[in-house]
């Protein structure tokens, strides 16, 4: 019995030593440490992890790669998606030309990225809040922004909700829950996180678009980290289109792209073929369901290609070969790809296409002609909305300008306002 007792004692001792050994050897107590100790000194490299794969549903010719991936979208929605992608292309073409003719001062096309706009927009509800960067006109179009509203903003005329204060393409709509665009890159990211925090008690989510260039801004880091630590239902939607103006992705980042950053922030991440509208839809849908249910962020990196120039102030032929652009245009263009898919299902044909193009052309030209005729907002509006109520010093400046114009008005474009 004595022996038995002492054995048991020894056993207990060794058990507790094992416990202690385990605690100190495999479970570091450092605050926040979620790993083990090792005696192997080696680098963790980009290649230590497999790169995140690209989710897709359609092949380059618009063929369904896996018959079980047939989208559960109604024909009506599928057709709306396609129509909006096409109308966006037509609007871009005409507004780009109108800038070249000197009718509007600036424009940015979305060529090649339509699927990222429309696929994500279709997966959200209208009361989900959108923070855009500047190249997401398709999202706004899908939500119901009219051609006239686009044109009015580009002209900065009396019907522009932004009162002519911003450059073209800085759209915004309270009714469509689309926060007005600002030019600084990346600033929208932490703001989207704050809004998502404020909406935590609802079923709404926030989606925030940005480019792979913006992801280099400090605001992107701030946003990823805040969203994860504060548990915010926000979808970070990166349109990785290959270029930030002229800077190619090779000069923008290392590692596994933008998606590769997600898991290190503790953010559930998806990488998707941004030229496949159905894949973008599925990814955004999954992200929305997760963000809304779990009150956590999701990062989506949509890989795409900016077929157009950065803006009307840019000529991309000076930094990338024309063949590269035509290759994407001819061999993996999202709208064409989606059209092939719809045709394969018998939902679309050449006749429909011609009708749609004619209608879109007519619509945008009419909007353009209307928008051009409208007056600008009264020049005195320049002084409004700095604050909710105009302070005295701004009022004085406004009055001084009124007096000045009484004498010198003929030198100012008063008649257009």
């Amino acid at each position: 019995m004595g022996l038995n007792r002492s054995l048991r004692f020894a056993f207990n001792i060794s058990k507790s030593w094992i416990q202690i050994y385990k605690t100190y050897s495999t479970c570091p107590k450092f605050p926040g440490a979620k790993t083990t100790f090792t005696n192997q000194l080696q680098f963790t490299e980009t290649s230590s992890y497999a790169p995140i794969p690209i989710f897709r549903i359609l092949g380059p010719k618009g063929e369904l790669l896996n018959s079980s991936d047939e989208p559960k979208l109604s024909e009506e929605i599928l057709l709306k998606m396609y129509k909006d992608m096409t109308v966006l292309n037509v609007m871009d073409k005409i507004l780009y030309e109108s800038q070249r003719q000197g009718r509007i001062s600036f424009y940015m096309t979305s060529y090649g990225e339509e699927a990222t706009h429309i696929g994500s927009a279709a997966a959200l509800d209208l009361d989900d809040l959108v923070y855009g960067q500047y190249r997401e006109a398709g999202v706004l179009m899908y939500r119901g922004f009219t051609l006239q509203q686009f044109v009015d903003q580009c002209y900065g005329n009396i019907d522009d909700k932004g009162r002519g204060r911003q450059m073209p393409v800085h759209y915004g709509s309270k009714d469509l829950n689309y926060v007005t665009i600002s030019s600084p890159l990346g600033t929208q990211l932490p703001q989207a996180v704050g809004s998502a925090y404020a909406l935590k008690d609802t079923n709404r989510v926030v989606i925030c678009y940005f480019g792979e260039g913006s992801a280099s801004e400090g605001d992107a880091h701030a946003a990823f980290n805040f969203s994860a630590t504060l548990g915010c239902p926000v979808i970070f939607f990166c349109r990785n289109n290959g270029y930030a103006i002229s800077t190619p992705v090779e000069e923008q980042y290392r590692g596994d792209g933008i998606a590769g950053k997600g898991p290190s922030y503790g953010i559930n991440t998806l990488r998707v073929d941004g030229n496949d509208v159905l894949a973008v839809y599925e990814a955004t849908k999954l992200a929305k369901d997760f963000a809304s249910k779990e009150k956590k962020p999701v990062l989506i990196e949509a890989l795409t290609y900016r077929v157009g120039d950065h803006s009307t102030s840019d000529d991309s032929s000076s930094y990338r070969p024309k063949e590269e652009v035509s290759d994407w245009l001819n061999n993996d263009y999202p709208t064409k790809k989606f059209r092939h898919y719809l045709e394969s299902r018998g939902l679309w044909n050449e006749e429909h296409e011609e009708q749609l193009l004619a209608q879109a052309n007519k619509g945008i030209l009419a909007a353009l002609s209307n928008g051009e005729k409208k007056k600008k907002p009264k020049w005195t509006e320049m002084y409004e909305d700095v604050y909710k109520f105009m302070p005295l010093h701004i009022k004085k400046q406004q009055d001084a300008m009124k007096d000045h114009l009484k004498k010198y008005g003929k030198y100012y474009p008063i008649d257009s306002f």
Partner: protein
Amino acid sequence: MASSRLRTQFFSDVIFNRGIFLSEVQLRRYSSHFVYTADSEKTTSNGTKSKMNMFQAINNALDIILKSDSKAIIFGEDVGFGGVFRCTLDLQKRYGKHRVFNTPLCEQGIIGFGIGAAVAGSTAIAEIQFADYIFPAFDQLVNEAAKYRYRSGNLFDCGKLTIRTPCGAVGHGGLYHSQSPEAYFAHTPGLKVVVPRGPIKAKGLLLGCIRDPDPCLILEPKVLYRAAVEQVPEADFQLPLGKADILIEGTDITLIGWGTQVHVLKEVATVLKDSYKVTAEVIDLVTILPWDVTTICKSVCKTGRVLVAHEAPMTSGFGAEIAATIQENCFLNLHAPVARVTGADTPFPCIFEPFYLPTKWRCLEEALKLLDY
């Protein structure tokens, strides 16, 4: 910000009197460039008052907001445990971690987050731990918060955002715990900028800022958090933004300041009265943007002599704006040029603080020059 852990440690040690860097005694000695005088503000309510220092008055204001506004949230670095200056003490315990919470250490994130929260309907109250560290958020403040309403044609605004941040000399803060960056923000249409001179003012202005429909920046002179004690009304009250306070009436010279400097100027006025039989009018500007031109110009037209004093450097300091406006509005009433007594055009130096600041002796000398001009 690499130095942020240092600064937290540094100031909480001082606050908790653990005396690792400086003892309370040294703190008092170094920060004795002014004598604090309590407020006799008559505009506040007649209800119960209790003795509070400035951090307690701010804490009290925040408590009132959290109690009365279910949408109010308070966030920033270390605010959860009460903040390095104790302004958010016990608020997390009382209102929960979802309403009073720490953020990661990232100023641009704090302000960006605050803007977004305000856009979506929260009453967002952000703390930047030191005004010296607000610059990573400069873009969010200047390009975003300030322009939100304007650029959207009033579709969206972040008027429900208020930013609190400690500023100014403290006796031992050196380059990065002492700055007064009001002039940077005064150059930004769309923001409102206020500086309280004591507990009553801090409480009333903070509640005013939080309920103001535009984004507000409240710069709290950190040396007053403990040094300034007053009988503060316990009830909810607001003080108006954009209105200067005449603290001492006088006819011979106008002395203008804000924050801690107001107390320096009050001392100068006393010396002028006692030793030189001169009555100085002391004005606390209170709001830097939009500022009370009317009160200032009325006073200067009466006295004909004016001195503006601030801790921030002279070149492009807010004193320059005041001087320009005065000469424009009071040119024929001036008996002497507008004088500025300010911090030197150097970074804020640690051990040289007594020589850097616009002390009462520098202000007095300049005031006497104006009177003899």
